[in-house]
Every structure is written in structure tokens, then in C-alpha cells.
């Protein structure tokens, strides 16, 4: 069974069509990148997965069950969510931020503590040095690592990333992209990743879903994306060509 299924999903807000009849399946363990320009509907598609919004028509099924029938609190606790700047709670320490979902799930204090320190170590923020800090005492890249650790805390089946590295400098960004690939190899979670950066998409995707004006313009692995004749895909590939030599140097 697919981890996430979009069945003829349309989403409108205030008469404006944001997603138009989207049908798409996301398989367990894959990293699906939703690529598109601003306003293409990619973030909307992401927020339909954890029930932050519900489809105007059609269904989004998680584990075979439509989001409209899920208890949304239960659904969201089983889906990790990482956003730009991490969305950390400014009044919580790093440890409390990371341990929040386990706390809500009623884990015992010592289990939370050991999970938190294990996760902080795995995102390269040694618990000894970082667990008592507050988000404002961290750099953008460190905040983002905490955001990833927080999303992983209660061992969710699915991870959602909403342009998580968008606000970072290029060097930190590259660092975190590599980290993402390493963590994916470690944890093997189903991931859905929103970005407008085609280089990022090519680097981390197992499949790319290109959205254009709320419609699916392309769906397939990065290798096929390079061959796509769709004008929107060509537009993104032009960006890749422009920055081609740079990309080669970076690798």
C-alpha cells in the first residue's frame, strides 16, 4: 500500500484554484520532491498530507484512510513536519523542543531524555552542549537541525519538509542537504520535500513531482526529469544548465 495517495484532489480558497485534480501516490521509503515556482501549489499539497487543510474535492489517503476521516491530532503526531527556520518554540530549550511530541504521547521522562540526546547526537548537535540552549542561541543551520530532530522524535512514518533550507546560506545549505541524505540512509523514512530549488530537487529526490499552476507537469525520477519535454520542466532545467559548472564544482 502507498504511504500517501492523492485521488483527484482539488483545493480552492476564496474561489481561487490552488490545486487542480492532482492524482499521485507516494511509496514507502521514497523521497518525493514537490518542485515548482511560488504559487504552484506545492506547499498546499504538503499541508493536505497532515490535514492542516482538507481537500475541496477528492481525497488524500494516509495509510489507506482519507484525511477527512482521520482524528487529525493522531494523524499529525504520526507525521514529522519541518519548516523554514525550524518553527521552534522560542520559550522551550532545545531538549524540550525535540522531546515535545514524545511528551504529548505520554512517554516516560527517562525515555524522552534518552531519545532526545540520541537524536541530537545524530544531527551533530551533541546533547551535552546543546540540550539546554534556547533557539535564539543557535545559528540558522543549527535551528534547522533541531527542527529535523524534533520531527524524528516520536518515530513518525512520514516526514514533511516545507522548504526547510530556504533561508540558509549556500554553504550551510549544502551541509544540511548532505546531512539529509545521510539521515535518510539511517532512518529510511518516507519523505515529502517542498522546494523551488531544482538543484536541491535533483540532489535529494528519488522522484520529482513538478507542479505548475496547481497541476502536475511531470512525475518521475531525476534522470527522466532531465529528458522531460514539458515547457515548465525545460524552464527549471535551464536554471540547472545556467548553474551547471558551479554544481560540478560543488560535488
Amino acid at each position, binding site marked *: 500500500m502507498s504511504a500517501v495517495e492523492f485521488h483527484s484532489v482539488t483545493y480552492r480558497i476564496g474561489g481561487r484554484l490552488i490545486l487542480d485534480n492532482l492524482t499521485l501516490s507516494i511509496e514507502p521509503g521514497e523521497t518525493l520532491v514537490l518542485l515548482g515556482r511560488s504559487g504552484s501549489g506545492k506547499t498546499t499539497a504538503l499541508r493536505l498530507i497532515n490535514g492542516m487543510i482538507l481537500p475541496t474535492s477528492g481525497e488524500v489517503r494516509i495509510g489507506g484512510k482519507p484525511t477527512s476521516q482521520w482524528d487529525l491530532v493522531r494523524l499529525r503526531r504520526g507525521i514529522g513536519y519541518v519548516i523554514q527556520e525550524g518553527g*521552534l518554540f522560542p520559550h522551550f530549550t532545545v531538549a524540550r523542543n525535540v522531546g515535545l511530541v514524545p511528551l504529548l504521547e505520554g512517554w516516560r521522562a527517562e525515555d524522552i531524555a534518552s531519545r532526545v540526546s540520541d537524536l541530537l547526537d545524530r544531527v551533530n548537535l551533541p546533547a551535552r552542549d546543546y540540550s539546554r540552549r*534556547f533557539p535564539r542561541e543557535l545559528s540558522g543551520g543549527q535551528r534547522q537541525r533541531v527542527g529535523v530532530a524534533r520531527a524524528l522524535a516520536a518515530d513518525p512514518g512520514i516526514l514533511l519538509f516545507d522548504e526547510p533550507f530556504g533561508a540558509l546560506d549556500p554553504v550551510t545549505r549544502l551541509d544540511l542537504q548532505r546531512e539529509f541524505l545521510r539521515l535518510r540512509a539511517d532512518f529510511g523514512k518516507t519523505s515529502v520535500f517542498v522546494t523551488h530549488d531544482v538543484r536541491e530537487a535533483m540532489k535529494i529526490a528519488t522522484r520529482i513531482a513538478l507542479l505548475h499552476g496547481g497541476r502536475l507537469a511531470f512525475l518521475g525520477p531525476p534522470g527522466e526529469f532531465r529528458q522531460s519535454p514539458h515547457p515548465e520542466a525545460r524552464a527549471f532545467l535551464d536554471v540547472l544548465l545556467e548553474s551547471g559548472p558551479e554544481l560540478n564544482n560543488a560535488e
Partner: protein
Amino acid sequence: MLSDVLQDLLDEGVGLLGEHLVLVLSAMLIASAIAIPAGVLLTSHPRGRRVALAIASIGQTIPSLALFGFLIPIPFIGGIGQHTAIVALVLYGLLPILRNTVTGILGVDIVVRDSALAMGMTRGQILRMVELPLAAPTIIAGLRIAAVTTVGTATIAAAIGAGGLGVFIFRGIASVDKLQILAGAIPAALLALAADGALGWLERKCAPR
């Protein structure tokens, strides 16, 4: 001779200060118990919010002596004495607390609220663990404004027989006795400063590091 006068003032003053504290503390407790929950509810009702804030603002424009007078003939809440004064003081305290509660909660970063929701927090958990703690410095700033004005306004409560430090002030005015006026005014001013200082300290302590 003078020391006898001072001794009398001191003896009576301790009792009046106690009465004053009772007036201020009860009014503040009741006003907070109404305005903080009301402010929380109003954050999700924009229309109700405008109406409630307008009513509370108008309430504040009524001169305090007139408000005490208006309340006297009203059954149950009115009459002569402490409880009428407390009702009036509550009415004055509502606005700053209500306004600051609404402002504080609406001021919580939308990204933070969004990620709380996305992590599977319930409405109640978001309020308790995220919105109220982040709004706390603003809400306490509202309490601080309310406390300082209540200490001052409570001196007028003596006009309707509610006691407090205003007793010295009114008696001093009637008998042209500066010492009596000062015996009421100085402790009231010090009390206001103490309330301001204490709540200011609490406000800074609640601010996110």
C-alpha cells in the same frame, strides 16, 4: 505632642492600608478572572473583540467619582461600602488586562502556532503550552497598568464609605489638614510603586530569554 499625632495616624493608617490592599487585591483578582479568559475567547472572534474592547474603553472614560455614585442605587452590586467600590475598580481594571491578553495572544508568531498544530497539539495544549507562555509578558504588562491605576482610584472609594487610604485624604481635605492628606497620599504612592516594581520584575522574568 506631634509624636502623639503621628502615633495616632500610624495606628489608624495600618488599618486603612489593610483595607486599601483588600480593595485593590480583590478588584485585581476579579478583573483578571474575567478579562484573561474573555481575552482568550475573543482572540478567535474578531467581531466580538471589537465590541468588547469598545465597551471596556467607554467604561474607562466615566469619571471614577461619578461611577461610584452611579453604582450606589443599583441593587445587589451597589449600595454603600466595600463591595460597591470593588465593582467599580473591577470595571476600570478590565480594559488594560483584556486588551493586553488579546494583543499578547494574537502577537504569537503564526509560524510557531502553525508548527504547534502540525505537531499534533490540541487547541488546549497550544493555549496552555505555547500561546499563554509567549503572551505572558504582555498580559503581565496589562496587569501592571491595571494595578497602578487601581491603587490610585481606590483612594476615591472612601467617598462611598469603602475605607482605605482615601479616608485620610478626604478627611484632610475637609479639615484643611496637610498632614492627613500626606498620610493617605504617600502610602498610596508607595503602594503603586511597589505594585509597578513587582509586576515589572515578573514581566521581565517571563520574557523569553
